[in-house]
């Protein structure tokens, strides 16, 4: 029987620190995905992933269990992402708007697969989406990422961000509108 997050936390707090690695294995992929889509760089996403789990481990006693562990973890990761975005500042926006891909390229699969036309087309779409998403204000981007890629409900997103559900819906709506406009603009420029 698979242990629940809360059971693993109890074991960890009881001194079985190795149990925490189960939580890492369970949540590393979503946290990495969230970080990558928020920051756009694999290297940054890896760093945020590590920072998130270390911070969670160090502060595990502060986790009161009135929210889901995953919500708490997402909140830590998003805070780390925002911290990095603030440091990157205007350079990020400039890089996206001018199509500068240096250091911001999504890591593609092996070169052999890239040679395939279907793969190239998909990668091209992915690149456009990535650019359009990165151009969104962070508060829109995070709700779109959580909704589209993490498949979280509006209520779950509201719990992570500690905002009303109606605000989440409103941000998703505005985010989709801006994505639509930007994607149309990019496709027209191709």
């Amino acid at each position, binding site marked *: 029987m698979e242990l629940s997050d809360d059971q693993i936390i109890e074991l960890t707090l009881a001194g079985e620190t190795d149990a925490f*690695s189960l939580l890492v294995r369970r949540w590393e992929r979503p946290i990495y995905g969230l970080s990558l889509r928020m920051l756009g760089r*694999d290297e940054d996403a890896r760093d945020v*992933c*590590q920072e998130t*789990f270390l911070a969670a*481990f160090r502060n595990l006693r502060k986790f009161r269990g009135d929210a889901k562990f995953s919500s708490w973890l997402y909140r830590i990761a998003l805070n780390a992402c925002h911290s990095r975005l603030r440091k990157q500042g205007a350079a990020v926006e400039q890089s996206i708007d001018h199509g500068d891909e240096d250091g911001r390229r999504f890591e593609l699969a092996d070169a052999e697969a890239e040679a395939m036309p279907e793969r190239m087309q998909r990668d091209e779409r*992915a690149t456009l989406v990535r650019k359009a998403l990165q151009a969104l204000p962070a508060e829109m981007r995070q709700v779109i990422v959580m909704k589209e890629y993490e498949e979280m409900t509006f209520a779950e997103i509201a719990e992570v961000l500690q905002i009303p559900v109606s605000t989440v819906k*409103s941000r998703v*709506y505005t985010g989709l509108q801006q*994505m639509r406009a930007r994607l149309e603009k990019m496709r027209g420029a191709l």
Partner: protein
Amino acid sequence: MMNEKNRFNAPNDCGRKEDLVAYLYDEANVAERASFKRHLDDCEACRQELKAFERVRDELSAWQVGFAPRAEIALQRGKFDVLRELVGMFPRWVRGAALAGAAAVMMLIAMSIAGASVNVRNGDFAVNFGRAANAETGGGGASSEAIERLVQTAVAREREKIEQEHNAQLTSFKDQLSAEQQAQLEAVKAALRREIQRANRQNPSIRSFFAQGDNDDPWGDVR
């Protein structure tokens, strides 16, 4: 027909933006869903927007993360846990030896803090406490040689005093022993005198034989 600019920025003034996204992501309950479906029949802007958002969602699905690197997290354990685990790895005798070693080190550290030094010279053993010696000399920065001399003088004085006491006791014992020996000697003399007198009474001729040419009575005054 709307031009492109108007199509992108067409305001959705019907006030059902939240209902639209709930419908789009299939999070509306049955009643809400039915209600919004009826609204779509009458609202061209919402119909257009819904289709556009579905296309955006389709575009968004193109960016998939094919892998996730394993997060290498070095978890920090409690210091006590680490120490307990580390100690448990060693056999008992090693733990005992380590404990004794640790105690010795602690003692040396304590002695070091107290400014003590240990001297082993000519088979003699001495522990000097620097701070105590300094205190005795008023803490005026006396050298370690001066302190050592002071201690040695004090030890020598004490040793001389003990030796004198021992000598006095020895003399007393000797005197006591001499008195006892003298008493025993006198007792033996008395016994011998009595034996001679008894023998003289039994055989006077022997006495007269020894009395010739010697006036002293060797038997009568044995000393």
